[in-house]
Each structure stands twice: as C-alpha cells, then as structure tokens.
C-alpha cells in the first residue's frame, strides 16, 4: 500500500507499507524532506511498525514524535505529515 502527502509549504512524504493481521508491517517512509541525523529515518519507520490499521492521525503522529530524540531535526515535514501519508496509504 502506498500513500503520498505534500506538506503545505514543505516537502513530499511517501509511505509504503503492508498489513499483517490488521497491523502495519514493513513500513518505509521516504520523500524529498530533510532529516538529521540520518538514523532518525529508521526510528520513524520503527515507530509505525505494528500500529493497528485503525490508528488515528493523532495517534500515529504521537508515536512518531515519541520515537524521536530532542536532537532530531525535521525540515519540510513533521510527525503529522507522516501520519497523513500513512492514513492515505491505508485509505
């Protein structure tokens, strides 16, 4: 499943995922955003793994936010933008 969301005034967030027993699996976030440090991408993917397919945008964004340390810089996108792309993939 595939979802894309262009952050207003920012960058494109793409999410590819599969569903396993109603839960997100093999989640891959990509896009033309900026993110530091680069390892933070794996933290974002990991935060989405296993979420129930019914998770709301707010729940998804909260999971992503909680997985990122204070040193992480997201430029051109946000946990909310990732959540919108996930919901679009699931729609």
């Amino acid at each position: 499943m595939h979802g894309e969301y262009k952050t207003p005034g920012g960058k494109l967030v793409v999410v590819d995922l599969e569903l396993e027993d109603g839960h997100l699996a093999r989640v891959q976030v990509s896009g033309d955003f900026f993110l530091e440090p680069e390892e933070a991408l794996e933290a974002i993917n990991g935060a989405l793994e296993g979420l129930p397919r019914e998770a709301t945008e707010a729940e998804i964004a909260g999971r992503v936010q909680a997985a990122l340390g204070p040193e992480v810089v997201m430029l051109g996108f946000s946990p909310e933008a990732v959540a919108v792309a996930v919901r679009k993939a699931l729609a």
Partner: protein
Amino acid sequence: MSRTGWKDYDWQLLRDGPMSPALHMALDEVLIYEVGAGRRRPTVRIWEWGGPAVVIGRYQSVKNEVDPEGLERHRMSVVRRITGGGAMFIEPGNTITYSLYAPQELVAGMSFQESYAFMDAWVLEALKSLGVKAWYQPINDITSEGGKIAGAAQTRRGGAVLHHVTMAYDIDAAKMVQVLRIGREKLSDKGQTSAQKRVDPLRSQTGLPREAVIDRMVETFDSLHGLRQDALKPQELEAAHALVESKFGTREWVHIIP
C-alpha cells in the same frame, strides 16, 4: 557555540576536472569530516560532472523517482547523496554544481532554513552582477521571475556544515521527464509547456557560456569573502575512492530505500 563570519576563515577553492558522479558523492562526505576535524580549511568546491546521472536525495525511494526504461535509454546511472532533498537530472554541460564546507560555527544559532539563504547570499550577488534577478525561495530553492534556477541541500555532521547546490545552466526538459517520474507527474499535472518553463536556466537568462558564469561566481566569492586556489590532497582523493568502493558505488547504498 558563538557565531563566526565568512571573513574569519581562509577559504580554499577546489576546481578540478571531471569526476564520476559517485566520486563526487564520496568527496562531499570526505570533505565535510576533514573540515569538521580541522584538517582542511573551509572550502568551496566547484564540480565538473564526468557523466550524466540522476542524483537522488538521502531519503528518496529509487522506484518512486526514477523510470528504469528512461534511465536505460539515455544510459544514465543513479547515485544517492548524503543530503536530503529531491532528485536532480544531471547532464555535464547543462549543470553548475558546487559545495561549501564550513565549521558549524559559521551558522551557529541559525535554523536550517535561515542557513540555506545565508550560505547562498554570495551566489545571489553573483547572479545580480550578471543581470539575473534571483532570490531565495524557502526552504531550499534559488528562483527568479522566469522560474527556478537552483536547488540546495545541507547536512551538518562532524562539527561541519555541508551546503551543496545544483544550478540549471541549461536543461533538456523532454529527456528529464523520461527519466524522472516526478517530472512526468508535474507534466501531466500542468501540461507540457508549463513544465518546461518551470525551470528557467542560466543560459537563457545570461546569454553567457557556462564557464563564464562559474568564473563570475568564483570572482564574487573572492571579492566578498576571499578565496585561495587549492588542490585536493592525495589522501582525500584516496579516501573518496575507497568510499565509492565501500558505499556510494554499491547497490546497498543506492537502493537503501528501494
């Protein structure tokens, strides 16, 4: 960390002959750490491309960005850079690319967004002197009334900031949309004419040869901040070649996001 200014540094210029796209990717990684470690002075590097390429951002998916048939047809390869941002369609004579490597103190206290415009202020000055009215369009574009001129990307690591920019000197828009998927989506969205107008390259805006535009950029940097001719150290080039072997030239890296 207190902020420094451009003039606090003895800026070095690297302007070498053509190198492979993968070697350019590797040099950016080598040189940001060299400057961060204090083994190299802050540096401006002008690139010459040894061949055509699609350069994708650190976080982009190859299959989302690149059309494999178009790539094959035009005998282009895909390389992945260490910075975020979008895909670039590179043909050697059509592109002007440069990197800046500086201690992070130069952008201390600035947001990433502020530091993009700060690192390219000298380029806007150079363009102005060539009669091109250009400005920064946040986050990372240099644009003009005619359309986009350039895209920048940054990363900060090892105590240094890398800021690199690719400018369109000329563009084969028809070929670009055969190779980049994103280009084609924009085409279907807005129609062929507007897609081809979206980028307004420096060739049509200045009427000057590519070399003359680069010369003016170098002169402008020199007059604003000072710039001294330098050469790559053998160990820097060696380290970059090793990184092509172990990272930038490998399928694992290029397809790290398939």
